[in-house]
C-alpha cells in the first residue's frame, strides 16, 4: 500500500511529477450530458490521482458517475457527452506527461490501449460478435505496432490467452462460443496486449457468479504483481473493493465525497454515504453485519438542488447541508491521507458514531 501524505487534489496545480509518482492524474474534470442549452452536469470538478502500481477503487451506487469518469478521462464518452473542463495527465513510460484532453486525435489514438486500457462492464457486448477472438486481439496489437508481422501478433495473442488461463486454441472461437467468465478473461487478455500502464476495470465481474468473480479478481491481482500496471477498479460493491484496492474513492452524484486508504474506509468511514454503502453489502470475510442499505435513491442530476446532494438521504443532515455544497477537505480528526466532503467535519460539533470511530 502506498498510503502517504496526499496533497489536496483540488489545489495541486503544478504539472511536474510529485513524489508519489502519479501515473494518472485527473484534475477538476467536469462533464455535461446534452449538447443543448440545458445540459445535465454529470461530473463536477472531479480530481483523482492514481499512483504507479496502485489499485484505486472507485465506489458508489449506479448512476453516481463512476463509469462516466472512466469514459470521460479517455474521451470515450458517447454523444451527447461533453467535457467542459479539466485535465487528465498521463505519465508515459519515459516519464513524459501529457494531458489526454489536449492531445490530437492521432496522439490520443496512439496512447489508448498502449498506455491506458479498459475492461468494460459487459463482456458479451464488448466483444464484436462477428469476429474471432484472434482477430479482435490482433487488431489492437497491429494498430499500435504496424511493423509487426501478423504471425507475430497471433503468437502474442496466444500467449495472452495463456496468461489468463485460456488454452490458445480458443483463438479461433467466436465470442458466442465462450462462457461469460471466459469472455471476461479474453477482454482482460486483450487489455493487457500492449502492457499498458493503467488498466481501468468498469464493473468487470458484476455479471458473473461469485466463484468466477473471485477467480478473475485473483488472476488480475496476480498479473498486476507480475506486470506492474496500475488499476482503477470501478464497482458498486464496496466490500469487494476492500479486498483488492489500496485506496478507495467514493463517488456520489458526480462528485468525489471521500478518499482514503481502503482499510480506513472500511473500518472507519468518514462520510455518511460511505458508511451507508458499507451497510449495503455483506462483507466477504469477517463477522456478519446487519445489512441496512441507504433509504432513497441517488438524486436526479438534471434537477440539482443547492447544498450537499446527499442531504435528503443523510441521517445527520444539518441546515447548512441544504444550502451549501461541501468541498473535499481534511477530516475532523485531521488524519493524513484522507479527504472528505462533508459539513459534519467542518462544523466543529462532535461527529456521529458511524463516521467518528
Amino acid at each position, binding site marked *: 500500500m502506498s498510503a502517504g501524505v496526499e496533497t489536496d487534489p483540488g489545489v495541486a496545480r503544478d504539472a511536474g511529477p510529485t513524489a508519489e509518482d502519479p501515473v494518472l492524474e485527473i484534475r477538476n474534470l467536469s462533464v455535461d450530458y446534452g*449538447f443543448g442549452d440545458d445540459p445535465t452536469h454529470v461530473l463536477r470538478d472531479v480530481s483523482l490521482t492514481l499512483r504507479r502500481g496502485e489499485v484505486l477503487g472507485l465506489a458508489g451506487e449506479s448512476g453516481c458517475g463512476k463509469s462516466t469518469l472512466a469514459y470521460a478521462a479517455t*474521451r470515450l464518452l458517447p*454523444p451527447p457527452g*461533453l*467535457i*467542459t*473542463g479539466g485535465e487528465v495527465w498521463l505519465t508515459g513510460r519515459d516519464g513524459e506527461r501529457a494531458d489526454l484532453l*489536449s492531445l490530437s*486525435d492521432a496522439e*490520443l489514438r496512439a496512447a489508448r490501449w498502449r498506455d491506458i486500457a479498459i475492461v468494460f462492464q459487459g463482456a458479451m457486448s464488448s466483444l464484436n460478435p462477428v469476429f474471432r477472438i484472434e482477430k479482435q486481439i490482433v487488431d489492437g496489437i497491429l494498430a499500435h505496432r504496424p511493423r509487426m508481422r501478423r504471425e507475430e501478433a497471433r503468437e502474442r495473442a496466444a500467449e495472452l490467452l495463456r496468461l489468463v488461463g485460456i488454452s490458445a486454441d480458443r483463438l479461433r472461437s467466436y465470442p458466442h462460443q465462450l462462457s461469460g467468465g471466459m469472455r471476461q478473461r479474453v477482454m482482460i487478455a486483450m487489455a493487457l496486449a500492449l502492457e499498458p500502464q493503467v488498466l481501468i476495470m468498469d464493473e468487470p465481474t458484476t455479471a458473473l457468479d461469485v466463484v468466477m468473480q473471485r477467480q478473475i479478481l485473483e488472476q488480475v491481482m496476480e498479473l498486476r504483481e507480475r506486470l506492474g500496471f496500475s488499476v482503477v477498479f470501478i464497482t458498486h460493491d464496496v466490500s469487494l473493493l476492500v479486498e483488492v484496492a489500496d485506496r478507495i474513492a467514493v463517488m456520489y452524484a458526480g462528485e468525489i465525497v471521500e478518499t482514503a486508504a481502503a482499510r480506513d474506509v472500511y473500518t472507519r468511514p468518514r462520510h455518511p454515504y460511505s458508511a451507508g454503502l458499507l451497510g449495503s453489502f455483506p462483507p466477504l470475510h469477517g463477522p456478519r453485519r446487519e445489512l441496512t442499505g441507504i433509504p432513497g435513491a441517488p438524486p436526479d442530476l438534471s434537477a440539482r438542488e443547492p447544498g450537499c446532494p446527499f442531504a435528503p438521504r443523510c441521517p445527520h443532515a444539518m441546515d447548512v447541508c441544504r444550502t451549501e455544497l461541501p468541498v473535499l477537505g481534511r477530516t475532523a480528526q485531521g488524519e493524513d491521507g484522507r479527504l472528505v466532503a462533508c459539513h459534519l467535519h467542518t462544523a466543529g460539533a462532535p461527529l456521529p458514531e458511524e463516521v467518528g470511530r
Partner: protein
Amino acid sequence: MRNQLLFLRNGKVVTGLAILGFFTLLAVLGPWLSPYDPNQVSDALLSPPSATHWLGTDHTGRDILSQIIVGARGVLVVGLVAGVSATVVGVLVGVTAGFVGGVGDESLSALSNMFLVIPQLPLIILIAAQLPSAGGLTVALVIGATGWAWGARVLRAQTLSLRKRDFVEAARANGERTWRLVLAEVLPNLTAVIASGFVGTVTFAVLSQVTLSFIGITPVSEWNWGTILFWAQNNLALQRGAWWWFVPAGACIALLGMALTLVNFGIDEIVNPRLRSTGLHARSLRRRGIRPRVGFTPVVREVRS
C-alpha cells in the same frame, strides 16, 4: 401524455402533419374548390400553364389543376381504407402470434414472412386485372389484404418482448383473462408501433394504387393522380414536352409520401430513443465548436455561467 407532447414538438412531425392536413382538405372540399369539372373538354388543347388554366390543360383541353384537386380524394380514400384494413389484419396476426407462442406463433410468422417475400405489386396486379371492375375501394381492399405482413412482423416482435415484462406477467398471474390482458395491458403499449405500421401501409397503398392507375388497371374515368399520369403517358406528354401534365401530379404523390415518411420518423424516434436528434443541431454545435463524434468526446472549455 409527455410522449404525445414530445411527438408534436418534433419539427418533422409538424411538417408532415401540416402537409397531410392540406391534402385532407383538398380531398374533402375538392369538388367545390376545383375551378373546372375535370372531365370538361375545352378548345385550349395541351396549353401550358396560364391565368385561366393554372396548371395547363391536357390533349382534350381538360384542366389539370382540377384533375389534381379532385383526384386527391381518390388517393386519400384508398390510402386510408387500405391502411386501416391492413393494420387490422396486421394487429390480429402479429399480436396473436406474439402472444400465443409455440406452434401458433411459428405458423403465423411463416405466413406473414411468406406475404412479405412474395412480390406484392405483381400479385395485386394479377388480382386486380382479373376482377371484373377494379374500382378504388376494391383496389384498396386488395392492397390491404396483401400488405399487412410487415406490420404483423414488427408487432409480433414487440408483443413478444412485452409479454415478458413484469406488469404483463403480474396481470397474468392474477388470473386476468387473456383477451382483457391483450386489450388493457398489451395493445396500449403497442400504440406507437401500430401507428408507425399504419402510416407505412398508407404510404405503400398510395404508391401501389397510383401505380395501378398509371398502368391502366383501375377504371381511367376515376380521377386520382395516377390516372392523370396514365393519360399523360398514353398521349406522349413526355415527347411533346408537356411537363405540366406529369410533373405536378407526381410531385403531389411525392409530397404526400414525404409527409407520411416524416410522421413515421417522429414515431420511430419515440420508439427508438437512440435515433432522437434532440440537441444535435449541426449549426448550433458548430458555433460552439462541438464536433460530435463517436469515440472522441468533444472537449469544450467554456466559461461556466
